[in-house]
């Protein structure tokens, strides 16, 4: 029945038990009255720090508004005591008002970035300070008002302020507040808050609306702060504006950071710190703000998770070692031979239909005329080169196009889909994964799956455990995603998408970055979904794996569908093939080489990985001076990584790079990366400035480079770079790289998004530079283009050099084409390069 485990109940009982023990100690009279007063105050601050810390730790909202809610509670109590209000009325009134205001701040804040929330809450505190000072009828202005006693409307007696009774009450309430926190900790509310905080987009995809979450979280937190305020008035017996200043807001943040935001014991530590910091500062002989500032800075620099976490980690390291558990991957592979893809039944109804869908971002058309039909149980693969609009299409399906304008029609189960919100699509039965496996890092593996539920029942828990078992994550259910290798990370992303048995599963590059075993396992998971009749839409650059699970393939280029067919045949379509390989233009005349050139830069055994993902393995490469070298491969093959390693700005994780002495290398990054708000001239100047060139020399080079630019750019040196066309931007980006007078120029995807005529112009210019003696490395998606412009072509496939040779050799071209798609260099010709 109940999903609350026994250990949670035990943990929740700790707070009230500790409070009861403390009350017993207080009533025994061992503690002198002044210290007892401090204990009461510490209890009040514990509740306050708890309200700020859990909001920060769980919802990611750092509030500067809490002094205002604290004050609201205190004034409510003091004013009420002077006007014969009952305890119940005071508490309900203060808590209710604060919750309403908090909900407003939370929902308004969710529309803005973190910094705007800071301003919003700062404004709230400033305004409250003014109100406290000015509304003297109620607040007594700077003089303050006394708090005497409150009667209970339910006949529970009278609550006298500023005495032992008040201190017991504060300690008791703090104990209960801690218990509430402990009960909420394993609950869905916290999981969904944390999820919405750490990854709003992924949270939306599983039906969590960040706005609603933050409004709810802020309301609850504000209510607790107001409760703490009522307690403050009761414990102190007097209320004036002094304690509610902006300094309290900063001290509160310091207390949270010190104790650890989001931990319950951290709140106790923080409450104690706030209470005794003045005494500690006095005995240390420093002014209190200096102590607070130093504590804040030191905690931020050296204790990012707070004292409690640091002590806990230390204790764990000293006391126990994590039991080593082995991942049972080998077992899973043993079962069964290669799977067969079940065909969807002929009578399967159409689940999804897109008619002429287009998406525009500003003036840019990311998707145009996309039509698609998917039946239940059918798997449709979307392929296409980088920038073809694949991801945009997936985002249309899951409602995550941001500021993009979507036009056209989409029906899901026969009902219009485009109007429904992203958070509603989960309920419609649409689940998706993300290219980079966007899991929630602060939730355990199990919680990542559980947070898809609004309320967690024992049944949900069992289902989630069973699901983790099915995808091979049961052995890491209590670990955090960041502790897992990338393959398991991706499995978790998939498990989260599968958590509510979706009818339509959307997979964004699920195979990318996985090793062979992981891929086989993933393919098996997909087949299992197919057997259950789930429709799957999948995009990836790893075509073999894609074709192994898909029933149908649709190819895109420039945001439009260009062909459709069965997996085995789609690449026979010349348009589809050329969208990847490009048209080989007439072979340009290249500067002659005699084979004696020294290497401008040489890589030996270079490998690179980002986090757990390997981007390059064992690359040996020499770039001879005066050559044009083409590095070709599909998106994700490792080209840009190789480019940055050659450039020298990215140190490889394995192997070494040796460069000729005084080699000046320049990189033109993918997508041009111009400074769009800067004018053409400024873009060039900044590059020269970065290379340490100033004054007259800078002007000479600027004039020289301007000469190199085509007239239509030369005449517009004062315009912002954003105003240029894609091709013009590319030429400017090359010119910018030339400002440093490089010996080696690395150009990443110069043809991306350009019209064919512009591509020709850019290539012609690069060719001329080569004739002038510049060494050029071209990173290209298109084999055809690279073949027409390079001395030597290297084909990368998933981080490995799959083939290399001279494009003048037609045998090599055929081999390269093969290697481009499947990484196999089938020809038996030995490769004598390097």
């Amino acid at each position, binding site marked *: 029945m109940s999903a609350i485990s026994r250990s949670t109940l035990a943990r929740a009982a700790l707070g009230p038990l500790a409070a009861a023990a403390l009350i017993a100690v207080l009533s025994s009279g061992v503690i002198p009255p002044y210290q007892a007063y401090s204990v009461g105050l510490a209890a009040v601050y514990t509740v306050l720090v708890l309200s700020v810390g859990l909001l920060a730790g769980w919802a990611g909202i750092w509030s500067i508004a809490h002094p205002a809610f604290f004050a609201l509670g205190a004034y409510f109590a003091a004013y009420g005591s002077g006007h014969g209000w009952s305890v119940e009325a005071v508490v309900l009134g203060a808590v209710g008002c604060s919750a309403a205001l908090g909900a407003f701040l939370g929902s308004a804040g969710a529309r803005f970035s973190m910094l705007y929330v800071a301003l919003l809450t700062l*404004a709230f505190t*400033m305004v409250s300070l003014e109100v406290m000072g000015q509304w003297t009828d109620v607040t007594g202005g700077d003089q303050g008002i006394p708090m005497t006693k409150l009667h209970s409307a339910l006949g529970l007696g009278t609550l006298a302020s500023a005495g032992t009774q008040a201190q017991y009450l504060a300690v008791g309430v703090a104990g209960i507040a801690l218990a509430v926190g402990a009960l909420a900790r394993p609950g869905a509310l916290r999981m969904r808050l944390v999820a919405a905080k750490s990854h709003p987009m992924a949270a939306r995809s599983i039906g969590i609306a960040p706005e609603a979450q933050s409004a709810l979280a802020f309301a609850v937190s504000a209510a607790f702060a107001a409760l703490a305020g009522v307690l403050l008035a009761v414990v102190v017996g007097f209320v004036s504006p002094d304690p509610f200043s902006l300094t309290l807001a900063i001290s509160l943040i310091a207390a949270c950071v010190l104790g650890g935001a989001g931990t319950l014991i951290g709140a106790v530590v923080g409450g104690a710190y706030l209470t005794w910091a003045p005494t500690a500062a006095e005995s240390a002989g420093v002014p209190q703000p200096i102590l607070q500032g130093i504590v804040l*800075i030191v905690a931020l620099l050296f204790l990012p998770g707070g004292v409690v976490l640091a002590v806990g980690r230390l204790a764990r390291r000293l006391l126990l070692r994590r039991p080593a558990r082995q991942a049972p991957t080998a077992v899973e592979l043993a079962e069964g031979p290669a799977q067969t893809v079940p065909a969807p039944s002929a009578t399967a109804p159409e689940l999804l239909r897109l008619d002429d869908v287009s998406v525009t971002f500003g003036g840019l058309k990311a998707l145009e005329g996309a039509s698609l039909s998917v039946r239940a149980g059918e798997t449709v693969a979307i392929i296409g080169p980088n920038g073809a609009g694949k991801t945009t299409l997936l985002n249309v399906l899951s409602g995550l196009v941001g500021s993009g304008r979507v036009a056209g029609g989409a029906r899901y189960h026969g009902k219009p889909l485009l109007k429904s919100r992203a958070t509603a699509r989960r309920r419609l039965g649409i689940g998706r994964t993300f290219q980079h496996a966007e899991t929630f890092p602060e939730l355990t593996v199990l919680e990542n799956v559980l947070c898809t539920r609004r309320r967690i029942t024992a049944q949900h828990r069992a289902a989630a455990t069973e699901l983790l078992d099915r995808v091979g994550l049961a052995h890491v259910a209590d670990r955090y995603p960041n502790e897992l290798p990338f393959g398991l990370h991706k499995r978790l992303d998939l498990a989260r998408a599968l958590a509510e048995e979706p009818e339509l599963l959307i997979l964004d590059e699920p195979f990318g970055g996985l090793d062979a075993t992981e891929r086989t396992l993933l393919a098996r998971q997909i087949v299992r979904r197919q057997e259950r009749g789930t429709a799957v839409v999948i995009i990836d650059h790893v075509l073999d794996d894609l074709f192994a699970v898909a029933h149908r393939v649709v190819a895109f280029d420039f945001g439009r569908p260009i062909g459709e067919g069965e997996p085995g045949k789609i690449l026979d379509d010349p348009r589809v093939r050329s969208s990847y390989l490009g048209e080989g233009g007439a072979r340009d005349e290249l500067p002659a080489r005699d084979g004696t050139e020294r290497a401008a830069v040489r890589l030996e055994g270079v490998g690179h990985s980002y986090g757990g993902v390997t981007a390059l393995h064992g690359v040996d490469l020499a770039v001879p001076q005066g050559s044009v070298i083409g590095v070709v491969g599909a998106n994700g093959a490792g080209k840009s990584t190789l480019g940055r390693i050659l450039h020298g700005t990215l140190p490889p994780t394995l192997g070494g790079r040796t460069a000729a002495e005084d080699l000046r290398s320049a990189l033109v990054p993918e997508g041009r990366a111009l400074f769009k708000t800067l004018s053409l001239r*400024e873009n060039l100047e900044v590059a020269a400035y970065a290379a340490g060139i100033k004054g007259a020399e800078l002007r000479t080079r600027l004039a020289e480079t301007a000469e190199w630019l085509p007239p239509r750019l030369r005449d517009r040196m004062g315009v912002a770079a954003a105003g240029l066309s894609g091709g013009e931007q590319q030429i400017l980006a090359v010119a910018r790289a030339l400002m440093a007078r490089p010996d080696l120029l690395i150009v990443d995807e110069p043809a991306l998004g350009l019209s064919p005529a512009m591509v020709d112009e850019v290539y012609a210019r690069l060719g001329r530079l080569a004739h002038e003696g510049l060494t050029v490395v071209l990173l290209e998606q298109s084999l055809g283009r690279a073949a027409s412009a390079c001395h030597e072509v290297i084909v990368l496939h998933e981080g490995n050099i799959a083939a290399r040779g001279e494009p003048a050799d037609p045998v090599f071209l055929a081999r390269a084409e093969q290697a481009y798609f499947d990484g196999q260099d089938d020809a038996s010709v030995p490769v004598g390069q390097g």
Partner: protein
Amino acid sequence: MDQFLLVLVSGLASGAVYGLMGLGLVIIYRATDVVNFALASLATVGLYAALALYDSGLPLLLAAVAAIVVTTAVGLAARETVIRPLAHGELLTALVMTMGLSLIAESVISTIWDDQPRLFPSLVEGSVAIGGSAIPAQSLLTLAVAAVAMALVAYLFGRTTIGSAMRAVAESAETAQILGLGSQRIARIAWALGLGLAVLAAVLYAPRAGLVPTVLSAPLFRAFAGIFLGGLTSMYGAVVGGLTVGVLDNLAASYVSAGYRDTFVFSFTILVLLIRPQGLFGVRTFQRV
């Protein structure tokens, strides 16, 4: 009408102060991703140092220059020790860090000097008669100095290579790094410039307000309101936002209620932001998967 002119001019003069501080905040934020809460208290350190030098016989102008030097030196030292070790992009940690700095700076001031209000000398005295109303000369001087400073900043960012480089880093730190642009150097320049502008604002503001350790917190908060109003990353936005807040603030104090000026200013700002979340000059951004 005369009364209105007076309120307007004094509002613009306050606005010029908020605008200068806002400009300092925006310059630092754009170049280093740090919202510098300590800007005001660091500038106050400079003010106290200047006052001490002035009292020992230094001319006021030189003392003001000394204030800029002191604040910049203290600010850069603080940046190197506590902000630089943070990873790039930790907006919130950096903000809280500067809050800690500000606590320390204010407390150091009241330890070395004290909390008693002091007079800060004014560069000019008296008033100028314009159309029958006597406009304080200090207000006009504030407007003039702020205008010159803003023009110089516009020139620096619009016409010089170093200014282009700062805008480049602000637009994309990643690309700047690929080009080999040293971001630490740019960050130091931005901090020095931002702090310098804040001290300038402080020197213009302090004679009116009287010198206490927290003298600049009110203008800092209004400068915040101004830059959010202006869009957080726009330098024009900071100036226009600051002027708007200044005028509103003075109008509210004269015609609504002197006690509720912050309430008025902040409510207005929040209302504008609810309607236009990106501010007046900000750019709406969107996230991609």
